[in-house]
């Protein structure tokens, strides 16, 4: 070891360590998540977690026919997963089912605006996976209802 013991207390000295991943916008969404909470009588809900770090996301969508009118999430976990959920939920209201289904991994990366390595990619795309699950479930439920009506 060549590192000398440091006597730097590292706090309250006006030093602001910047980190390329934990940018202002990510920390802001982590600390002040948008669209956080529950929806009364949601059209569809879905849960997902990342067992490696224990990230958890529950999302709820309110749909008016084919259009998302409200989207909320509850979750706990790392800054990347929670910020990603917050940013994603914010963009959903007003989108159709098809538009929401079209959101890709790359779109999430663009929203986050940072490079995430392979181990943290799971955190970043967990909310997208949960959204995909919710949309799939809703589609299945609709098909089921249609079948029942027609059958």
């Amino acid at each position: 070891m060549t590192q000398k013991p440091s006597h730097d207390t590292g706090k309250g000295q006006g030093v602001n360590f910047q980190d390329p991943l934990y940018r202002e916008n990510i920390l802001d969404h982590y600390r002040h998540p948008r669209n956080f909470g529950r929806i009364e009588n949601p059209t569809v809900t879905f849960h997902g977690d990342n067992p490696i770090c224990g990230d958890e996301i529950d999302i709820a969508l309110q749909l008016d026919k084919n259009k998302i009118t409200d989207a909320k999430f509850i979750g706990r976990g790392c800054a990347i997963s929670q910020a990603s959920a917050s940013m994603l939920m914010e963009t959903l209201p007003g989108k159709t089912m098809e538009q929401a289904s079209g959101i890709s991994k790359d779109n999430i990366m663009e929203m986050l605006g940072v490079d995430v390595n392979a181990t943290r990619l799971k955190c970043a795309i967990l909310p997208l996976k949960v959204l995909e699950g919710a949309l799939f479930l809703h589609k299945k439920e609709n098909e089921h209802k249609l079948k029942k009506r027609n059958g």
Partner: protein
Amino acid sequence: MLDVTKIRKDFPILGRKINGKSLVYLDNAATSQKPVSVISAIKNYYEKSNSNIHRSIHTLSQEATESYEGARKKTAKHVNWEEEATIFTRNTTESLNLVMRAWGMKNIRKGDEIVLTEMEHHSNLVPWQFLAKSRGAQLKFLSVDAKTGKIKTDEFHNKITGKTKLVSVCHMSNVLGTINPVDEIANIAHENGAIFVLDAAQSVPHFPFNGKQHDFDFVAFSGHKMLGPMGIGVLLGKKDILEEMDPFLFGGDMIARVELEKTEYDTIPGKLEAGTPNVAGAAGLGAAVDYLNKIGMGNVKSHCDSLTKYALEKLSEINQLTLYGPKDTKMRGSVISFSLGDVHPHDLSTLLDRDGVAVRGGHHCAMPLTKVLGVTATTRASLYLYNTKEEIDQLALSLKKASEVFKLDR
């Protein structure tokens, strides 16, 4: 006192740069690094003696058999256990599964109870869940006091009773570092006619372990946490119990005589080691044991103890840092779990990695325990013989930087 500067030269990986910084490897509870002598033992085996063991008469096969059985002899001596009752497995998990399958399926019956603690690693929990479900047995758990990080001793006699058939407890917690009163628990288990299994994955690598000074029926540990390679583990068992047991896996190398309809099994340890084993892994473990003995397990322990004490002091100076586990360093090993404000352990791990500091963030394969602690995950720094005070200083400094990034002091 250890000559840590000299020791570090034996571990090539410690010279690595991570993100341009010197590697500070503090994830030893997950796996230890390997000295040159261990890496050479594996290389030598494959370059000079590779051959299948116990089968052929030719020189290479003899050498391979000597490597494998020599490693068993060294390992048995290291923990003071009978050679023939020292079984090679892949890892602690497999050792515990061996006990579950070969002893548990035969001896656990409907209505029996299996006693564990709330601080077990999944490897000492999930196999017993399966056994209990398969056999109609009940699981009981000794509770952990979240504040002290210790098992509640007043529950021992309530939970370990005449119905108990098996008690399995970790010697040292892989999350809290707590060293459990395993002799006391083993005694109570035996008074009630139960067998006692020790998960020694974290303890055998860190303390002197003399099997004959205790009364354990089974002891499980891994080679890779004690400087050895991955893929070689150990199960120590009492001879009479091992002899009574059914085989774990069936096939080659575990037989005495085979006919089309029936088979006479080999004696122990062969009976419990079916198939071509990890000979190179055993040779590596033998070299690891030699290395540890050269240093002395007493010296390993005192180095890790003093480093743990230093780390606990250093970390407790950091604002908004919560330490888990016993405060008393006599009751704990060199595993230190903590949380820092509202920074998630994975974010913290990412930030520490920027400075080359390798720690583990998550539930450490002990999800029920993290629940007891009232957290979703923790960050863990775990130390070993090659770690230094300067590395602890770097950890502390990097944690303070992480506080800055997350603006914890504002």
